[in-house]
């Protein structure tokens, strides 16, 4: 995963979950971030789709179990999408 992409997802997670960006790591997940509940998970899905112009399938939504996994997913989606 590229550092630039990870930083974008990290900033997005910081905004959504109300946590300073320096406290967000690749391992940050619903178990470690208090505000990462069902609604914020949906907001993360919608934010990713809007920012990167991708459409996430139910399987992909479920893969977003941490900030790092979300970044990996977005990267693979962008690589698979003809630009």
């Amino acid at each position, binding site marked *: 995963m590229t550092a630039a992409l990870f930083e974008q997802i990290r900033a997005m997670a910081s905004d959504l979950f109300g946590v300073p960006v320096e406290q967000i790591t690749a391992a940050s997940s*619903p178990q470690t971030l208090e505000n990462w509940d*069902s609604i914020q*998970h949906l907001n993360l*899905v919608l934010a990713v789709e809007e920012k990167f112009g991708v459409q996430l399938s*139910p399987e992909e*939504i479920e893969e*977003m179990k941490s900030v790092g996994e979300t970044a990996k997913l977005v990267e693979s989606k962008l690589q698979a999408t003809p630009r």
Partner: protein
Amino acid sequence: MAIVIQPYGPEHEPAVQEFNRRLQRSSDDPNLVFSKTAIPRWLPPAGNNPVWNEFFVALDGQAVRGAYGLKQEVVFIRGKGLHRVACYHHPLSEGIVDRSYASVGALLARDALARQPLLYALGMGGVERPLAKMLKALGFGLTRIPFYFRVVHPSTFLREMRALREERWRATLMNLAAATGTGWLAIKSVQGIASLRSRPADFVAEEVAEFSDWADGLWDQAKNGVSLAAVRDANTLRILYPPGVTSTRRLRISRNDVATAWAIIGERRKDEKFGKMRVGSIVDCWASKENMTSVVKAATQALEKDGVDLIVTNQSQHAWCSAFEKSGFLKGPSNFIFAASKKFTELLQPLEENRPSFHITRADGDGLPANF
């Protein structure tokens, strides 16, 4: 393992019961339970019925991690005819009690939208509740449906209305008002002044065992006065209010032996916020504008005769709101929300022009079995 959402079948019933047990172990909310049976008790699919309920479960292998219901129905939209839509109800996710499943709520809502893009939800307990927030994030338009009430027995109301008595000073004042009769006087005055504005009507109200052809005539006469309404023809009404069901009652209102309107009334199940009060509800009503006040009067009189302490109703159509206000009903704070998906909202355009004549009541959505 990937989560897969499927129609709820009898083979999933044990896993749903286990899902319910996990939710109940981690929460003190008794409402966090999904239907134990795959076939809905209320509105099971049957023949060519135009309205029915169906359930879906989110499976993680053999385990159920979420579930929701869709009430399939047909709505009339002025100028755009009849459309099949669905009410999204009872979504439950294991994410409520276990963050590992935080994605399930989004999966359920998106699955419902994929099955029926013309989707709505109703009630939800207010715009700040999780479901309303989630639907708003998905682009649903939210509309608050006004709430009206009429106090029949002021002293009981003042003693029992727990939602208003949460602060001690207010409870003390209400006790004092109940004991001295000043509360009675104040409530009766406000309601009395309001009800004096309406003229007495020359109608006859009778309880009927079931809806028949006369209801089709009323549906056709009044539907062009609304911009949105779930179909309320005789066939649909017989399914929603089948003969023999006594939790709600059907009133037929007529003038000179001609049916002019109908109303559904019922006594609500006991609810903590109403204390020991008997709460009657004007659940639904249907009439052309000129007959609305007579319906409100007939329904109110029937519930007062039953001995209820308070009468409540939710009405979205401005003409009905006006009829209730003219009949001495007071407007209260409402947490009854109508949320329409993006596609549904597109059909309802121009929204600002159409919204005042939406006909949405407590009979819509999934509220009937939960409240009566």
